[in-house]
């Protein structure tokens, strides 16, 4: 368990002080994948460095696995750091060492024999699926391969925790996916607690169990990933969530006055967001039959978050006023967030929750 208590970190620059982290309190449970998301400059990288004391907090307490980190001697701190692996955006491999030598670096002076080290390195490279590149130098590897080596190196000391500082931010989407898979695998197979720093909501959605949102050095929102996506509270959280869904593209289309969103007087443009596990219900085909409205789906985006479906649909529904009203009422009673973005009768962007219109 990682406990961060009242963490503050202030950097003294030449003529001013910059506070990177303010009053942060977090508890990260064993074996969970915990995400910290924020824009660059939000203080998340500084915060994660407070866990292994690459940055010493100006005030507060850091307790990792029951050990009060700030009270340790330099030697004790080094021992403790061996239990906390870390990977970075820029990989930070040693360029003059081969892949195998890089992975061996943290355990060179650990008392293991040459054979034992070689064995362990092979096992780790097998785990990250890079056995065949053991003799290569980092400059000969792709970004994804470099991060795999960095992960193998971080695992060499058998850590209980892995800190990932923007570990996928320098990688393309396909490679990001494979690295995220690997991180999920080391969490489930090796039981390692993973702390992920990122500015990509997609990473949080695909990998994490719980998440904290940081802004201006503070944690402004914390929740399980599913609940955060389902019920975001802060504006910044909603913005992050919008980046992972194509539903928000509708607003761009309206702004651009696209042909597709030019409505007839008997049409309404609605956004429906599924709140709980009700996506399996054939809602749309039901309302179109029952209330005799036609539903033209423009965007639909349903994803599994923590195994539960989450997402929404943007559609143009067409029908008589009364039928439209009834249809939307029915849908909203099914725990679906309904929002009329544009009303053909009013021919103006209203963007009001259904309840307020009704």
């Amino acid at each position, binding site marked *: 368990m990682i406990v961060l208590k009242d963490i503050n970190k202030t950097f003294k620059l030449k003529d001013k002080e910059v506070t990177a982290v303010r009053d942060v309190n977090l508890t990260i449970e064993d074996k969970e994948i915990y995400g910290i998301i924020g824009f660059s400059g939000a203080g998340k990288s500084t915060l994660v460095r407070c866990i*292994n004391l*690459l940055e010493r907090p100006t005030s507060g307490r850091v307790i990792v696995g029951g050990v009060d980190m700030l009270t340790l001697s330099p*030697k004790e701190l*080094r*021992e*403790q*750091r*061996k239990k*906390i*692996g*870390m990977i*970075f955006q*820029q990989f*930070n*491999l*040693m*360029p*003059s*060492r081969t892949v195998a030598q890089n992975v061996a*670096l*943290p355990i*060179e*002076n650990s008392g293991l024999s040459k054979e034992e080290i070689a064995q362990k390195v092979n096992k780790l490279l097998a785990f990250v699926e890079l056995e065949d590149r053991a003799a290569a*130098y*980092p*400059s000969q590897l792709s970004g994804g391969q470099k991060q795999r080596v*960095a992960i193998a*190196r*971080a695992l*060499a*000391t058998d850590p209980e925790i892995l*800190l990932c500082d923007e570990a996928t931010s320098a990688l393309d989407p396909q490679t990001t996916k494979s690295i995220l898979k690997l991180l999920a695998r080391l969490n489930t197979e090796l039981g390692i607690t993973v702390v992920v720093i990122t500015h990509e909501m997609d990473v949080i959605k695909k990998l994490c169990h719980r998440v904290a949102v940081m802004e201006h050095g503070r944690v402004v929102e914390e929740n399980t990933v599913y609940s955060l996506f389902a019920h975001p509270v802060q504006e910044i959280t909603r913005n992050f969530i919008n980046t992972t869904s194509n539903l928000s593209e509708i607003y761009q289309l309206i702004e651009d006055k696209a042909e597709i969103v030019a409505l007839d007087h008997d049409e309404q443009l609605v956004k429906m967001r599924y709140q709980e596990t009700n996506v399996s219900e054939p809602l749309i085909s039901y309302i179109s039959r029952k209330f005799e409205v036609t539903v033209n789906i423009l965007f639909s985006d349903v994803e599994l978050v923590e195994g539960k479906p989450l997402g929404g649909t943007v559609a143009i529904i067409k029908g008589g006023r009364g039928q439209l009203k009834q249809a939307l009422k029915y849908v909203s009673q099914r725990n679906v967030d309904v929002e009329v973005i544009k009303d053909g009768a009013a021919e103006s962007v209203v963007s009001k929750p259904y309840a307020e219109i009704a």
Partner: protein
Amino acid sequence: MELLNLLFPNLMQKLPEFYQAIIDTFVMVGISGGISFVLGIILGVTLIVTKSGGILERREVYQFIDKVINTFRSIPFIILLTLLLPVTRMVVGTGIGVKGAIIPLVFGIVPFFSRQVESALTEIGTGVIEAAQAMGLSPWEVIFKVYLRESIAPLVRATTLTTISLIGLTAMAGAVGAGGLGDFAIRYGHNRFQEDVTVGTVIVLVAIVCLIQFLGNRLAAKNTH
């Protein structure tokens, strides 16, 4: 042989002395270079680890070494030679000859080489050092396994550059009777107007410098991955 006699009449008459001068140069460069290499690495590493943000940050230590290096670098070598005469006499017992040249050469080249080492080590990204600290390496391990090991190629280049400068300095030390090729060229070539001696000496020096540069480049390339 005929041709050499024709081209370098004076030089060919003092071949044994010429060979001795070459050997003296190598001895001076070798001994003062060896000492300077060790001292320069130590000072360069100390500068890197004690500077602000370094792994063993000690502002006072950094400032002190920094100022001392700057002071010695601003003294022209020819002045340093005479300035250090009492020290040299005290340590090695003589101020002239190959023996007398070692100490001023060390003082002359160490500040230069320390800076070269510092800049070579600066090439290592802070991220790599951060990674090394995150994996629990001790400061000594960071110095030997990361700083020095990762900068072998730039250190080789710095050493090559420094060795060549050092050969230049030995020639200057020749002016105060240190022996070696510089001394040889000045005594015969310059003072007695035997120009072929000067030319011959320069040719040998050019060859030595080229050889050192060639070896340095090869070694640096071999350590670049």
